């Protein structure tokens, strides 16, 4: 039976409201690195759809995912539906790379490259620009909803919405001709899918980067959940050197008699002056000094914060630093050449090589031969036997190709293509299907013969292609 007589019965209901986090802005090498990544990522994402590119057939957009015509255009690379294994290869490569990096330096992806982190970062910068730094923002939070608060919060959300909208629109522009979409979008002339995509992305960007923030990392992202599986004692983590920071007598703020390292060490007090700057700068609102936590996205801002304080005091930096659990316990530096790292590294390199090979060794054209199965063979008026084949030719080049089709393995057979053509022409970046009749004199000896279809480009632009098939006599 349940009782409500327990003194620890929570005053809070069973649902927990999110407490807004107002991280303090900080400078330092990790912040600078994050800013560079941010600039590069934003530059690529927002400008790429507008880059023009000349190609023989297809849109003049450098990167475009053209769903209606079933082509992905990546500069000079055109990905056809039958090349979709490249996408699988790319995803496998991404996974191996992620495992490799995680095994080595922990959640580097989360802290520096994840779009949730990047967009949250930008939204926080907007917040800081409009509402001021941490203290001002916290004061504003506590303030009643007066004119100033409405104006500042309103302006923040307005700017967020603009960024979110442009994010959504840019994403949509990857799937259509960007300048055309721009015009049609704002003249309310674009397809509904464009508005729906932009709308959904605007909303999710605004919610995820403006309001949900660390909640996305903690509750929604599966990666946060399985990160621990990939960690071991030698994985580099953003960690607090507890031995140095706490000493024997724990951390103590600066005060009379505890101002210098010598004084502190003499009394067994650690180097941490409990200034809480590392907590204030944390975008997920945790205290790194509590050790490895699910919420930590490994962004390194607490390292910047602590280093800044240590430098100011003239003490050695690195009280919070990238260190492995083992290093903190024994002082032993991580061994980078451990089996797992090498394994993931080899897998990453192998996946890259295979992917590149897959891209560059793609046949410029391919064809398939499917025998008509009903009827498998037909007796003709002359007594000869006829088999029919559906031949489909895909031309992946940016120029038209002209083919001659012949068969090998049945010298007495004749081949004719339905239609009145001199050659099998396949337009640039296109495909054609032809019905082919093959006739051979009746052969009472065998039921079937294995044959090859040979497709030769008339102008020798590509190597001849072969396809196995069989000819059925009875």
């Amino acid at each position, binding site marked *: 039976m349940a009782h409500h007589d327990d003194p620890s*019965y929570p005053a809070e209901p069973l649902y927990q409201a999110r407490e807004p986090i107002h991280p303090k802005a900080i400078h330092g090498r990790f912040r600078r690195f994050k800013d560079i990544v941010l600039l590069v990522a934003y530059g690529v994402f927002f400008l790429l759809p507008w880059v023009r590119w000349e190609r023989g057939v297809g849109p003049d957009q450098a990167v475009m995912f053209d769903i209606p015509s079933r082509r992905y255009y990546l500069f000079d690379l055109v990905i056809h539906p039958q090349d979709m294994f490249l996408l699988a290869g790319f995803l496998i490569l991404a996974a191996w790379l992620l495992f490799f990096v995680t095994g080595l330096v922990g959640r580097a992806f989360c802290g520096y490259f994840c779009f949730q982190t990047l967009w949250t970062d930008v939204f926080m910068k907007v917040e800081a620009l409009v509402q001021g730094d941490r203290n001002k923002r916290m004061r504003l939070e506590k303030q009643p909803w007066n004119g100033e608060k409405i104006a500042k919060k309103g302006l923040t959300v307005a700017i967020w919405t603009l960024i979110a909208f442009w994010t959504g629109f840019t994403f949509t522009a990857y799937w259509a001709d960007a300048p055309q979409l721009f015009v049609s979008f704002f003249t309310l002339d674009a397809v509904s899918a464009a508005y729906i995509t932009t709308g959904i992305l605007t909303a999710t960007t605004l919610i995820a980067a403006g309001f949900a923030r660390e909640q996305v990392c903690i509750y929604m992202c599966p990666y946060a959940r399985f990160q621990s599986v990939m960690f071991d004692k030698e994985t580099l983590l953003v960690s607090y050197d507890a031995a140095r920071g706490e000493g024997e007598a724990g951390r103590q703020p600066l005060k009379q008699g505890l101002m210098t390292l010598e004084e502190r060490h003499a009394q067994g007090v650690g180097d941490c002056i409990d200034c809480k700057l590392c907590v204030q700068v944390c975008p997920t609102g945790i205290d790194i000094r509590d050790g490895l936590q699910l919420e930590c996205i490994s962004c390194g801002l607490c390292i910047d914060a602590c280093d800044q304080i240590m430098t100011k005091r003239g003490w050695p930096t690195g009280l919070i630093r990238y260190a492995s659990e083992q290093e903190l316990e024994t002082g032993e530096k991580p061994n980078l050449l451990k089996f797992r790292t090498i394994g993931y590294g080899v897998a990453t390199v192998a996946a890259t090589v295979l992917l590149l090979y897959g891209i560059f060794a793609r046949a410029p054209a391919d064809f398939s031969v499917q025998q008509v199965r009903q009827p498998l063979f037909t007796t003709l008026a002359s007594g000869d036997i006829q088999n029919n084949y559906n031949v489909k030719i895909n031309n992946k080049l940016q120029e038209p190709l002209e083919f001659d089709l012949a068969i090998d393995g049945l010298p007495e057979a004749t081949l004719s293509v339905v239609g*009145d053509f001199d050659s099998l022409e396949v337009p640039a970046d296109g495909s*054609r299907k032809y019905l082919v009749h093959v006739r051979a004199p009746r052969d009472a000896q065998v039921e079937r013969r294995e044959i090859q279809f040979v497709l030769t480009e008339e102008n020798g632009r590509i190597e001849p292609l072969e396809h196995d098939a069989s000819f059925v006599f009875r």
Partner: protein
Amino acid sequence: MSQTENKQGQVETTGHVWDGDLREYNNPLPRWWLWAFYVTIVFSVVYWILYPAWPYGDSYTKGINTVEYTVEGEDGEEKTVSEHWNTRALFTRDMQSSPSALAQEEWVGKVKDMSFEEIEQDPDTLQFAMSMGNYTFGDYCAACHGAGGQGKIGLFPNLADNAWLYGNSYETIVNKINNGIQGMMPAQNVAEDKIDDLATYVLSLSGEAEISGEAASRGKQAFASCAGCHGAEGKGNEAMGAPNLADAIWGVADVPGCGDDVACKVDEIKHVVNNGIQREMPAFGDRLTETQARMLAIYVRQMGGN
């Protein structure tokens, strides 16, 4: 998640106690999660309003969303129908006005405007016509002629070979599709003592049997009454749909089914001679549009080649 701690530094529990000492940690769900649940409830209510949802009695709530499509009324006038949202209506509408339907319409227009010779020279149009012809064939012709046009000996002609009872001009094929065919060979009254020779003679035209001397001349003599339709040499007559008896193709008498058994072959021929043939292909003109019939003709004509 780490456990939330209360002020005493103990781990906070929900306050429920079972069996005197079992407590449950309080790891509260974030509130926005609860809101997301409420949003799904709102979503479902909006859904009920827009789409068919709740059954009642022998009916159901229809929702306010509608689908419009055109139908041809009894007077031949096209009119727009508006129905509550349902997938059948959606399908009808898509078949009329979706981008694919419009693209198909455009291609059908091309076929309509081109002559058969022009279509044969244009790979894309030919491919389209063959493909549409294939589907039309599946809908209307395959029930008798078979999915691949292979037919059935004695009943339905084989369309996959290169023999054509009425010739293989496109115009003839379209004409036969539209108007149907009465395939008729009257039963022949051949005397008992002549019929074996006649049958053997017919088989000899295509090398299925050997005949010589007296028997050959008796057979040939008896064939005179056949020659009116099948021609003096048994080469057939396309104007009447009389088949060529001198080629390797057998449409009615199952000669290939006999293997090397000549007596069986003779019986097959005798059966046809004695009983005649009465076959009918219905007219499809009122079920196909002109362009459909043309595309069907292209498909059928090219299925077996010349």
